[in-house]
């Protein structure tokens, strides 16, 4: 599934990660907790194969970060969903189009796109907002659109980088509930957050990270 063995990452003079070992099983919910600058985002970017480790081995599904070819990366990304603190939505399109975007960008046919978009919008509780523009939505709703988009291609794992970082406590609870629901349906989740109190309430595996090292 996801397997990191003795992973090191260096950016210029800064040693960002060292000796990282991490394992995520299929369908597991894992939280990476640590202060800002601890290396959580870097870890997720390594798993998403946006950057490559300086040392060590990263296996995600059947892809090896060391040997993956540039041409294979888009196909790899379709199997890994990702959401961010700042949502990264297309402001000039409505909810439906934002979710459909992930499908058409990966070459899915139109009729199938419509069907699949309605399906994920229903799963994320956004059916009634499908024709709203992004700026008409609350932060929590925007994050749900981002999650719906990440789920559109039916990934085996959802990476979430501070998904509640921009949200109030009510919206945070809603998003966590949604993530739990998604996880119950079998999608593994790897979430990074600096709010330790958040994960204490969740029935999840917690990995603590500080100064680039896993401490617990």
């Amino acid at each position, binding site marked *: 599934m996801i397997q990191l063995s003795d992973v090191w990452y260096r950016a210029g003079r800064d040693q960002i990660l060292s000796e990282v070992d991490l394992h995520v099983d299929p369908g597991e919910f894992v939280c990476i907790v640590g202060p800002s600058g601890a290396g959580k985002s870097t870890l997720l970017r390594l798993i998403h194969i946006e950057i490559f480790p300086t040392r060590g081995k990263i296996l995600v599904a059947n892809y090896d970060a060391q040997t993956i070819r540039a041409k294979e990366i*888009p196909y790899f990304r*379709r199997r890994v969903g990702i959401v961010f603190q700042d949502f990264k939505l*297309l402001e*000039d399109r409505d909810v439906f189009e934002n979710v459909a975007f*992930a499908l058409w960008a990966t070459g899915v046919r139109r009729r199938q796109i419509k069907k699949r978009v309605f399906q994920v919008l229903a799963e994320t509780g956004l059916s009634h907002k499908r024709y709203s523009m992004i700026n008409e939505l609350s932060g929590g709703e925007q994050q749900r659109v981002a999650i719906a*988009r990440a789920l559109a291609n039916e990934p085996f794992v959802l990476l979430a980088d501070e998904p509640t970082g921009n949200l109030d406590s009510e919206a945070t609870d809603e998003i966590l509930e949604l993530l739990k629901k998604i996880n119950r349906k079998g999608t593994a989740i790897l979430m990074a957050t600096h709010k330790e109190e958040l994960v204490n309430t969740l029935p999840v595996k917690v990995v603590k990270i500080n100064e680039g090292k896993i401490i617990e």
Partner: protein
Amino acid sequence: MSLNLLYSFREGVIGLRRARVATFVTVSTIAVTLTLFGIFLVFTVNVQRIVGLFRERMALEVFIDNSLSSEQIKKLDEKLSSLSGVRKATFVSKDEALKRFKKEFGEDPLAFLGENPLPSSFEIKIQQAEQTPQGVETLAKKIENIEGVEEVVYHGKLFRVVDRYSRIIIFADILLSIIVLLAAILLVANTLRLTVLSQRSTIQIMQLVGATKSFIRRPYIIQGVLQGGIGGAVGSIVVWGLVRGVALRFPRFLEVSLPLIILPLFLGLLLGFLGSGIGVKRFLRA
């Protein structure tokens, strides 16, 4: 594949509509640039043509001894025609000279002189390579020494003036052509690169969700080709209209071929393709 292409085309067109203001700015920039380029092209081609016409007129008049027999004239004709630097030697008989005189001055010398005073002559057209003041002078000297030739007349001063100015004009024109072409290329390519750059969040998200590079590139290339093509077409139409307008007032002043008119359109399409293609490619690599 064809379905994908159709989709990219649709997405490209939708993208243009979505960013209407940017599209308008881009297309009008390209249109203005390529119109300027087209006008300059027409100008250049015609300057070259008119200068060529002037050079063409560098001809020599060779007056010959009036007592020569037709046999001797024929031999002289052969001799002149075979000289290096001569493109064409045409015999102008006394009668022919008289006809030309009447036509040019509207008076008949026979009426007040009682006889035809005009000598027979040869009109010598010069080969292009010799159409220089020195070339003409050398050739004239050579002809003067031939037996049966009385006098060689040519407008040496005019030749020198035409020669000097045509060189300056052609040099300046070529220099300006290069500048205009470079400006057009840079302006169109950069405008399209900026368009691509303004779409960077969309491109980032496409990469995030697993779109292949060629899939990401395609709609932008289609957009570039459309914008370049529309801008270029406007350029071509404006240039065509201007040429027609000038032709109404000064017929035969401009000579323009169809390829010349549609060159802005072609350049627009080509620059649209290359500008957007390179723009996205650079962005995707970074």
